[in-house]
């Protein structure tokens, strides 16, 4: 498509072509028409209004935008919505039960004071949920935990309580099995 065609479009009106996408988000089927350049993070936040998925850096470094894409944690800022056509997505909104009962990972963050401002928390929770669902018997040494957490940045806590929350999450999830 010619980029020149985009020039001269009135302000506020997007010249972008639309591509139909359909995917399952938190168990519900959604269908939308989006520009190919819409990031999955923006799709989740702006189109679906699921604002629990946060956006910090948009280049893959901070981890705030982590969601689970077809059973694997991934950065939603490093995927286009069109790439998720046909996919199944889980966001932080799906983690607690419908009645508000916290997921073991959320429960652990609460017990261990694993958050302060909470900006980074959805990303940490999604990374940990994905990892522990995949690895029922995780190595709980300090180094191994920090390795798993290394892809998420937190500017408040100093990580100590997040490491503790990871350990507690593993315990709670083991107990739940």
């Amino acid at each position, binding site marked *: 498509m010619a980029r020149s065609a985009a020039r001269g479009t009135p302000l506020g009106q997007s010249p972008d072509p639309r591509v139909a996408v359909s995917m399952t988000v938190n168990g519900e089927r959604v269908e939308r028409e989006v520009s*190919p350049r819409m990031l999955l993070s923006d799709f989740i936040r702006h189109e679906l209004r699921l604002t629990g998925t946060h956006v910090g850096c*948009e280049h893959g470094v901070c981890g705030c935008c982590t969601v689970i894409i077809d059973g*694997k944690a991934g*950065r939603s800022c490093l*995927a*286009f919505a069109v790439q998720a056509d046909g996919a199944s997505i889980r966001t932080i909104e799906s983690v607690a039960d419908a009645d508000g009962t916290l997921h073991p990972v959320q429960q652990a963050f609460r017990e261990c004071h694993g958050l302060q401002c909470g900006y980074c928390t959805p990303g940490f929770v999604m990374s940990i949920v994905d990892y522990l669902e995949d690895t029922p018997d995780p190595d709980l040494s300090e180094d191994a935990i920090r*390795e798993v957490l290394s*892809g998420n940045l937190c500017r408040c806590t100093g990580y100590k309580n997040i490491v503790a929350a990871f350990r507690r999450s593993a315990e709670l999830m083991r107990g739940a099995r």
Partner: protein
Amino acid sequence: MKPALFAYAAPQSVEEALEILASDEMARPLAGGQSLIPTMNFRIAAPSTLVDLRRIGALNAHAVEGDVIRVGAMTRQRNLERDGAVQRANPLIAEVLGNIAHIVIRNRGTVGGSIAHADAAAELPCMLVATGGSVVARRAGGERTIAAEDFFHFHMTTALEVGELLTEVRIPALPPRTGYAFQEVARRHGDYALAGVCALVTLKDGVCTAVSLAACGVASKPTRLAEAESALLGAPPEGEALARASDAAREYATAADDRQASADYRRDLASALVRRTVTKAAERARERA
């Protein structure tokens, strides 16, 4: 929406992908997006069309076949890292992959994407050079196999031509009586290496009968440390021979001072990492004997 406008295609076959790439020289393949999408978000890259390879099943398989591991370009880094058969055939691969970024990035990042992207500090290209691997590239007219040493030309520049698709990466299995090691130094865990060294050491009667050493991060492309290798050949992997090898590695660290490290520091790192990786590889060679 930060990236510049582009058209999107998600073909089902390599042939279809090649057709789109051939019709538009500003079109680019999209693999895991873990390097391409950040550069598009910053508008450093602005391809006219993205050819998403995710639906092409043929690129998504990997298998150990005799003494070679054939890895389809779209194999996710994390899947290769966790594959038991691959680990048995060449445990170096998982050790190298563990140094790339973070689990969540490796969940999406592909093996072919990392090789095609060819960052001079990236771990996989360095491993491919050290193991003497190769890549398979396809274009509309045919297919060619390119040895790793001929593939990487410069920072983010490879032998791939516009419109050519990397379809497979071939990594040799670990030869008998051979130990391996990959180590790197990075400012933060998960960062690209300031310097990294990959070592393969084959021992017979305590003496090196084959040595392969490659470094990343220290030059404009992954580099074989030939002088360091010859210093070790025919000698035990320790003492004076190891000191000479470790010294020889300095000369290959040609990267200029940058914000992350000075040239001197990188020379020191190359030297220290040769010492450490050769020692580790030799230890593993003895364990395997």
